[in-house]
């Protein structure tokens, strides 16, 4: 009897632990996507909130009428602005991910192969910029890249250039900002897998006559693939929807979908189109998000 009671108590206790975070995330993370989907089928009107109701109660017939309008999606597919913005985001996210990987891999390897006593300090130094506001760090680049900024002054002083370069509000500035902001997201998971590697494997490979480069490509790199996948997803997925960096550093010609969504929402007050833009972005990102989730689950097990 008491065993049964204990079991029930145990189950209740588990529910008590599990339910608050579970319900919270369902209510405030999963459920909201349903409302985005719903409003993406609505029509923008001048009212508060600025969209037409999807369901209308018809008192004569006594039924609820649903009107699903697909013209927001048609509009997005017909106006080349949106397609170009999606492609622009995809291109910037892909190239930035590759640059982050190229810079971040040796960086992470250097930390992982440093003496254990120094690793804590190096990790802290890596985390510190991540702990300071992204907004402020991106803003700092304006002071460096603008025409009378630090970089142009240094280049003029050294004599590499004769007149200031236009660096700000270019695609170049976008790449600098994105790589800068997201580099720690690449380095941390890479470090985590590289640090765990068994160094005796490398010694064995050396003893058997393999060159350091061969050892790297045959042992270090393949064993670090989980970190590479996590790092790439942690950079690629959020960059697709990035808003702050393109707004502060890019010119008008660098189209990114996060900025387009923001403009539709806040400047044009077209919430249904902004919702449709978000739904398409989510559909594009589902596969990368699933890859990321699988990687997380594997690392746990």
């Amino acid at each position, binding site marked *: 009897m008491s065993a049964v009671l204990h079991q029930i108590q145990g189950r209740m*206790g*588990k529910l008590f*632990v*599990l339910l*608050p*975070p579970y319900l*919270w*995330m369902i209510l*405030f*993370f*999963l459920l*909201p*996507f349903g*409302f*985005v989907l*719903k*409003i993406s089928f609505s029509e923008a009107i001048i009212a508060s909130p600025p969209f037409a109701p999807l369901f209308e109660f018809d008192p004569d017939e006594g039924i609820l009428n649903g009107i699903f309008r697909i013209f927001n999606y048609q509009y997005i597919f017909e106006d080349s602005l949106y397609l170009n913005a999606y492609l622009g985001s995809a291109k910037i996210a892909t190239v930035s991910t590759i640059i982050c990987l190229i*810079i971040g891999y*040796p960086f992470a390897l*250097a*930390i992982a192969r*440093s003496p254990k006593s120094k690793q804590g300090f190096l990790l*802290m130094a*890596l985390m*510190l*910029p991540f*702990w*300071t*506001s*992204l*907004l*402020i*760090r991106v*803003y*700092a680049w304006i*002071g*460096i890249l*603008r025409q*009378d900024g*630090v970089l142009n002054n240094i280049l003029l002083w050294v004599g590499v250039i004769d007149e200031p370069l236009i660096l700000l509000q270019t695609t170049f500035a976008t790449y600098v900002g994105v790589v*800068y902001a997201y580099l720690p997201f690449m380095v941390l998971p890479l470090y985590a897998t590289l640090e765990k590697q068994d160094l005796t494997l490398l010694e064995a490979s050396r003893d058997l006559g393999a060159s*350091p480069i061969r050892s790297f490509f045959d042992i270090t790199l393949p064993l670090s693939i989980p970190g590479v996948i996590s790092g790439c*997803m*942690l950079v690629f*997925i*959020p960059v697709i*929807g*990035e*808003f702050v960096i393109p707004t502060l550093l890019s010119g008008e010609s660098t189209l990114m979908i996060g900025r387009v*969504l*923001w403009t539709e929402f806040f400047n044009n007050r077209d919430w249904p189109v902004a*919702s449709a833009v*978000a739904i398409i*972005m989510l559909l594009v990102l589902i596969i990368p*998000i699933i890859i*990321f*989730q699988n990687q*997380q*689950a594997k690392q*746990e097990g």
Partner: protein
Amino acid sequence: MPRFLKFSLWAGFAFLYAPIFVLIGYSFNASRRGSVWGGFSTHWYGELFRDEQILNAAWISLKIGVLSATGATILGLLGAVAMVRFGKFRGRTLFAGLMSAPLVMPEVITGISLLLLFISAEQLIGWPAGRGLLTITIAHITFCTAFVLVVLQPRMASMERSLEEASRDLGAGPVTTFFLVTLPVIAPAIVSGWLLAFILSFDDLVIASFTAGPGSTTLPMLIFSKIKIAVSPDINALATIIILVAALGLVAAMFFSRRQSD
């Protein structure tokens, strides 16, 4: 270490820190125009502390940060216990997915979806009435919980189980054991998680912009509206203060987790 690796280490750190040092340097520049060095001055710091608007926004962000970090730490802790201690349970895959997806979800999507939820809920059930501190805090708890979980889960997984087992063998119930044994052991990780959540909430621009209402302009929202128009020297001073506070927070967090591993 090969010379190439050493070079990438130093180049990497130079890249990460150069803008921060430039910003700190600018904040002590007496000249209003950033390009000209007008001598050392703390003028902009004085200016900052006389600016009602900035102080007000900082106070709002502080309140939201403390509430969000506390909420996210509680949910993240419960989530970590479930993930690490409950083994396989029904709905675990969905649970794990929901707890980690906010790590990568673009902020504009999280922001618009929460706003539409709040507005639809207000139409349907009359809650939440309008938007402000409460809605921003709910939104911040939602995305910060995932980051707290990332900090807590590995700590809990690597914790020595024998301590908990000993406590249970001596007749303590699961709740007593959790509060008297588990919690003290992972306390440093909880502090780190709380600090990280606070910083993330304090820094957030995008999600707060979607879920804020009139009268709840947070510090990042105010900074953004100022720097969009022009470079303003008082923002350099503000940025320097934020960087220093964040640095102290990180050192504190590292100190706590060091003590734990010793």
